[in-house]
């Protein structure tokens, strides 16, 4: 699990003021190089360990789910943490992405001349189909995001929560009954979509995770990201300073849906079965819990808590009947003692940490450092 922490990219620290005295700095280019090297190293070592059997099949399967939930949590974090809204329909986007990606790949397999076996072997045609399928899944989810986002984002707070909840429920019911409407077997209805080729593995899951994190991070650091953050901090002030709030709210929501769709696509390939019943209200809550536990607005927080909460029930398997109790107790303890989430809005930046070390700014030297901005 050590490597997981290293794959982080430098991320926004919302408005932490820095002293303006001359200090050693690491240029942006160098930061990217350091991070890229670490990420490639992480992927290479991980993939080698999976290949060698040092990470067993069971652990690989759990790790893939960790990757999927990282994407889900980080994508929801765009809407909750950065945009400051409370959508409860993230599982809906996940199922749209999952179904459309899986159906697309299954229907396109003959056209690409790809068999089930090719996905395991990782032939170029299969990889291409995988990429197209995932993007297709993401785009379908994003389209749903536009449809849902435009009316939903006129509302705030609990009203938005209820309306997104309703839309996710609509998506679930559509998945359940669409076969009867279109007249041929598309989603498989209640019995679910079965026979999805297992097109995910450790390597491609985590490559997608890294790309998703990178894209979300760079977007949040850009002009668009700052506009989104300004809406969270004060919508009226943002609008008064010329930020097109409707546009940026919808944008954040759609990007959130897009990556949820990507996560759903990976999920379909990882499990091999999609059933509408699995994408109900509880799935949305599960993802929301990850975001809240990690700290809303902290990408590292989402990554860590998604990892933690996915591994925890599996790691506690030895305690059989008590494991779900422990899971709940952990959540309660965190919320009592750290209501802002494990990391609050703090975000990790390897570049900044290295800079601090280069400047000998250690946390124990100055107790009042910028560690806790609340």
């Amino acid at each position, binding site marked *: 699990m050590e490597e997981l922490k290293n794959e982080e990219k430098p991320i926004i620290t919302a408005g932490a003021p820095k002293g303006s005295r001359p200090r050693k700095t690491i240029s942006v280019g160098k930061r990217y190089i350091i991070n890229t090297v670490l990420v490639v190293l992480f992927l290479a070592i991980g993939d080698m360990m999976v290949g060698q059997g040092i990470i*067993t*099949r*069971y652990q*690989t*399967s*759990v790790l893939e*789910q960790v990757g999927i939930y990282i994407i889900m949590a980080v994508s929801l974090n765009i809407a909750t943490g950065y945009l400051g809204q409370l959508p409860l329909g993230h599982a809906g986007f996940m199922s749209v992405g999952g179904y459309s990606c899986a159906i697309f790949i299954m229907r396109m397999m003959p056209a690409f001349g790809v068999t089930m076996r090719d996905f395991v072997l990782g032939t170029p045609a299969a990889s291409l189909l995988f990429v197209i399928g995932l993007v297709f899944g993401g785009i379908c989810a994003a389209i749903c995001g536009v449809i849902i986002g435009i009316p939903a984002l006129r509302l705030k707070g609990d009203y938005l929560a209820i309306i997104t909840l309703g839309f996710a429920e609509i998506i679930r019911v559509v998945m*359940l*009954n669409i076969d009867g409407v279109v007249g041929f077997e598309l989603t498989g*209805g*209640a*019995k*679910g979509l*079965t*026979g999805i080729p*297992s097109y995910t593995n450790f390597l491609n899951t985590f490559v997608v995770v890294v790309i998703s994190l990178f894209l979300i991070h760079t977007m949040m650091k850009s002009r668009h990201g700052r506009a989104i953050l300004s809406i969270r901090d004060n919508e009226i002030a943002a609008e008064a300073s010329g930020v097109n709030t409707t546009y940026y709210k919808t944008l954040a929501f759609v990007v959130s849906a897009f990556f949820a769709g990507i996560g759903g696509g990976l999920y379909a390939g*990882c*499990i*091999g*079965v999609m*059933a*509408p*019943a*699995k994408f109900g209200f509880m799935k949305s809550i599960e993802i929301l819990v990850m975001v809240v536990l990690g700290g809303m607005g902290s990408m590292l927080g989402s990554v860590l808590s998604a990892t933690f909460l996915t*591994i*925890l*029930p*599996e*790691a*506690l*398997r*030895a*305690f*059989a*009947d008590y494991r*779900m109790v*422990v899971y709940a107790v*952990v959540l309660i*303890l965190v919320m009592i*003692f*750290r209501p802002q989430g494990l990391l609050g809005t703090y975000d990790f930046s390897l570049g900044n940490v290295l800079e601090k070390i280069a400047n000998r700014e250690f946390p124990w030297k100055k107790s009042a450092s910028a560690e806790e901005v609340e």
Partner: protein
Amino acid sequence: MANNISRRDLFKASGATALGLGVASLISACGSGSGSDAAISGKTLKVGLMGPYSGDVAQYGLAVRNGAKLYVKQFNKKGGTKSGKKISLVVQDEKGDATEAVNVYQKMVEDNVVGIIGDVTSTPSIAVAQESVNDNMPLVTASATAADFIKYGKNAFRACYTDPYQGKLMADFAKKQGYKTVCTIYNSGGDYEKGVNDAFVKEAKKKGLAVATQESYSQGDVDFKAQLANIIAKKPDAVLSPNYYQDDGKIVTQARELGYKGVFLGADGWANIVGGDEDYASGKDLEGCFYDTSFVSANDDERVQQFIKDYKAEYKSDPTNFCALGYDAAKILLTAVDKVDKAGAKDYEDFKQKVIDTIAKDKIEGVTGTIKFAGTGDPVKSTLIIGFKDGKEYIETTM
């Protein structure tokens, strides 16, 4: 301030405890797993048993687990396999979730089990079946009725019959009873309910019965009066309600309240509608209704009565259809394991292959009837049609 510090310390302590527990269990999880060929040469043979033991569908998982555990216990009590090996069960909860089921399956493969009894509900079972094909792992489900379960490879078998089979059977029965007009009411969110309903409607139409209306409801509904009013307006001879007993009980009771006097037909989800943990409908309301099942306490077959006695002695409660199917699933797998163990196998892979071959041509005298596999993973077995008379279940006919 003091208060603040103590809170922080407590938080740190609880964090450390949680981390310690996690690490400890990770280590314990990593500890096992060695050479796979040792799996068949040791003193015990490992058999996996998976199902939902917590969550929404736990009642089915627990019932199957009770049945399967009872058989394994009896098997070991008799001295295990003919060469004296005992069976040790690797039991894992999957909460009725496909994701967890796949994880559990991978874990069992690492434990080098020689076969798996599971899974219980349809979607997780299909997920496991798809995964297991690559390992050629013998898989015997007690209760996954979805047709797709056996589609992926020759390694998957079931002790129960499929949804379409039951739907077809009840349509045959309806024709035989001379019904002219039938209606259905089913849970559109359940694969089992929808599977039976669709097959019934298809077969009924083929047989020349008029299907006046198909009413559906959503998972979790408790009021069925609107749908039932539509059905009663069509004046059907019989109504098919192929749902689980909790819903069926309410449907029957509410229909009688609305004045419907006709017959209800059900599938094996009806088992336990009366005489189980509680009565879901009164005997008076159920008078003249029929359902199909493979196991019923009223069966005076010697094996069935012996099973009921043993089960009662072990668990102090009455066995249900799922318990009996769990018992039979364990019997199917262990009988084959026993035979292969006696005949000998080259290595672990060969052992699994031979278990699959043996199950495929075996004939098992189970408590849910004589089970034989004719080339597919679907069993060929007799089915009981159960009727209600004077508030009691009786066997109307065997089909």
